[in-house]
């Protein structure tokens, strides 16, 4: 039962962040997912990222659609509002919430069924709008809750637990994001916390839609031989292209990074992402280059991971709407209602 709270008693020696909070303060209810589920590792990485950034949990809203992945917002940040909406429609909820309260920090958790099938349109349009949201797609290539059907991200030739072979092309969220103009595109692996946490942190601080496709194996239905979204396959075929380190403005220590190999991308608030290029010819601010690089590696059966593309000049939806700096939901009524005298004047137009 996902509403059972974990005990709140903390070990006194747990490390604390700048707010004096421990990682336990960023947890939620106990997971109800299968033991070993990749999604639980992603949840742990999310907890770590929020903790490291010293974000007050209640200033966040956690949004999701329907599916195994969409259950996970209950498992982190218990002091944040959560919204488990309808299948494939988390982006619309996020868009509305962002319009109402631009100060609300939004994290959306989705899966490959939720994002690449029923919610494909909404995913495309939230990218197009560049809503200020960290969008985590927990990608396991399979429908878990309905017991093992292929999802749209299943690779051609991969097999289901029952031995069926997928003959259809897969929809690659990362390539799609690049072609749709997404301003922050990353791919990672749930089993690679070292890579995932900094990417999540950078994504949280990105102004605009940060899309992270996390390969997150389904231990029950898609972790067998023949699966291309299992632990073994991913570990073997993962190629880290760009390693990201997120450095908040006030903590910048550039000396830790070897000059030359590091590309510093300054974010809207002055903090920066340091990208260590592992491939010589890779430029993470070159959208077309990122696309072809991923395709080249895919042809060789390799899964490219890291922060693959970032647009440091991203303009998010609220900026494009030219809305007030203050959140709209909190504006005083007097500033919204024109009043009777204006109504009288306005009606001359209708005579």
């Amino acid at each position: 039962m996902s509403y059972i709270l974990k005990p709140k008693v903390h070990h006194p020696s747990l490390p604390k962040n700048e707010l004096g909070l421990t990682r336990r303060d960023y947890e939620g209810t106990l997971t109800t997912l299968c033991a070993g589920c990749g999604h639980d590792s992603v949840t742990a990485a999310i907890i770590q990222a929020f903790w490291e950034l010293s974000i007050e949990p209640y200033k966040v809203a956690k949004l999701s659609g329907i599916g195994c992945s969409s259950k996970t917002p209950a498992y982190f940040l218990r002091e944040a509002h959560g919204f488990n909406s309808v299948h494939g429609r988390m982006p619309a909820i996020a868009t509305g919430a962002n319009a109402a309260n631009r100060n609300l920090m939004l994290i959306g958790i989705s899966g490959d069924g939720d994002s690449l099938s029923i919610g494909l349109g909404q995913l495309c349009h939230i990218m197009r709008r560049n809503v200020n949201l960290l969008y985590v797609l927990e990608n396991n290539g399979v429908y878990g809750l309905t017991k093992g059907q292929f999802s749209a991200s299943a690779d051609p030739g991969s097999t289901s637990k029952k031995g069926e072979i997928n003959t259809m092309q897969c929809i690659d969220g990362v390539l799609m994001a690049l072609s749709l103009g997404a301003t922050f595109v990353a791919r990672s692996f749930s089993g690679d916390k070292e890579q995932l946490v900094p990417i999540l942190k950078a994504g949280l601080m990105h102004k605009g839609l940060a899309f992270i496709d996390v390969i997150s194996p389904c231990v029950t239905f898609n972790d067998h031989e023949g699966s291309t979204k299992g632990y073994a396959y991913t570990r073997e075929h993962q190629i880290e292209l760009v390693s990201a380190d997120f450095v908040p403005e006030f903590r910048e220590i550039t000396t830790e990074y070897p000059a030359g190999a590091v590309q510093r991308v300054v974010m809207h608030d002055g903090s920066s992402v340091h990208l260590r290029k592992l491939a010589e010819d890779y430029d993470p601010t070159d959208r077309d280059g990122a696309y072809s690089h991923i395709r080249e590696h895919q042809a060789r059966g390799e899964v490219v991971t890291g922060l693959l593309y970032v647009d440091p000049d991203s303009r998010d939806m609220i900026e494009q709407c030219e809305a007030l700096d203050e959140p709209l939901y909190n504006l005083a009524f007097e500033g919204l209602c024109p009043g009777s005298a204006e109504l009288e004047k306005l009606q001359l137009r209708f005579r």
Partner: protein
Amino acid sequence: MTSGVNEFAFKIATPNGTGSASANGLIMQTIFRMGIPVTGKNLFPSNIQGLPTWYEIRVNKHGYTARTPVFDLMVAMNPQTYEKDVAEVRSGGWLLYDSTWPFDERLLRKDVNYIGIPISQMVNTSFKGVRERILMKNIAYAGALAALLGMDTDVVRGLTQEKFAKKPALLASNDKAIDLGYNYAVAHFECPLPIRLERMDETKDCILIDGNTSAALGCVYAGATVGAWYPITPSTSMMEGFKGFCERFRRDPETKKNRYVILQAEDELAAIGMVIGASWAGARAFTPTSGPGISLMGEFLGLAYYAEVPAVVFDVQRTGPSTGMPTRTQQGDFLSAAFASHGDTKHVCLYPCDPREAFEFAVAAFDLAERFQTPVLVLTDLDIGMNDWMIPKLKWDDAYKPDRGKVLTPADLEEIKGFYRYLGTDGDAIPARTLPGESPKGAYFTRGSGHNKFGGYTEDGDEYQEVVDRIAVKIRGAGKAVPAPVIKKQPGAKLGLVTVGGCHAACMEAIDILAADGTPVDYMRVRGFPFGDEVREFLEAHDTNFVVEQNRDAQMRTLLSLETGMPLNRLESVLYYSGYPMSALHVVAGVKPSAARVKVGVPA
């Protein structure tokens, strides 16, 4: 129906996309400014250019504003539809046509007076350029009508001067075209005709406005800050109106920053999702749509109902089913709106009858949605939404304070021991909510999956029922808060005449006709759902109630029977669903034979 001074109707037939709207608007406004009650109905195709379009204008000194299907004069400017247009003129009426080309003799009727004016010839001689010639043909027929109907030429000139104050070239062209039509008519025909205008003083406290515009204005006055939409006829002009008003009232003159956000969604599913997301986060948010949009929004509306999130939806109804006739009116969504979504759902619905109520109910919708934490659907229709109605000026009470419902602030949360989202123990079955981002003590998990009163996930039958039973009580309570029905009784009346929305004008006129004919009826117009007790009491007080509505399947009758327990044999249907607005004649024709059959006072 009698015809004469300040009591007649005429119809203008043109091809779509020729710019006739501006000429028709000029005629309407002139009559209105002459102080004479007037109403206009635009019958247009789902097309940009070429297909037939009609504009009907009814002038009525008694103030009857419903559509009339009887036309004293036809302005036949579209040869494509001559045959139909000739047939629609009442016997003894007039037909104005462009005599540049000969009129097909087979279409001549002996009982109609033909007024041939060589409009194209005159306009082509006086104007150059294809576009201007097309536009000025319309203005020329307006000029001819000014003479034939006795319009006050000072008023006409005043209007063109206002409209083209900053475009002197256009003003000159318009005035010239008006003169062409006017002078020809005066020179060749006895002007004015027996159907003609004489100044009155009945419109000075009124405006001419369409319901999409007034509903949009209502959203601005209610303090809505987020509008999400997917363009769909006939609701589109509502968001355009909202945008226009916001640019005027909600844009900071210095910073140019907006106190609103408008989101054009990828579809209606996203549009309602955005509204729910924004409302959940504390903004007043709305979406305008039409029937097909309501179908698509079903799943999300069920979520908002069950998770108790406010949402305001405007359904500008059009002719269904399916794509139906997008530019024709109907009241076909009563059932789909009231019960949108799977499972046990029931939504608060409001039914304005004209643009004035569209404005008032728009404001009420936000109050109800936030107070009851549930979707509220405002059902207008194409006729209310897109046609210009003469209504009393809109009024605003500056003492109005929005009802934001039970929203706990961080300070409130400090006062209480623990916050649980779905308790609802205040007696009204409405729970308190919190907004995201405000306090760690207010956090809860919003979900459409089974939940208990603490907001926790549940698959326990008792816990589940406890919540849905409370919601049922809450929604029932909304029946006392929606606008009460309008009830008008007549001495000696035994029959009930029940209607809803835009049928109001036709019914008010029909009641007078029926009364004069010896069949007085008591009248009730329902304005909100769930129905309050007055609705049931009215129905019970009459052995036979005629339910007048604009759909094939008598949806309001079904809803009334379902919700009040009134047996169907005491609810007789009067239906009109061709896609045109209802007229009094349809009501009378529906009531009279049945009224005779049921023998007043004896149950049918």
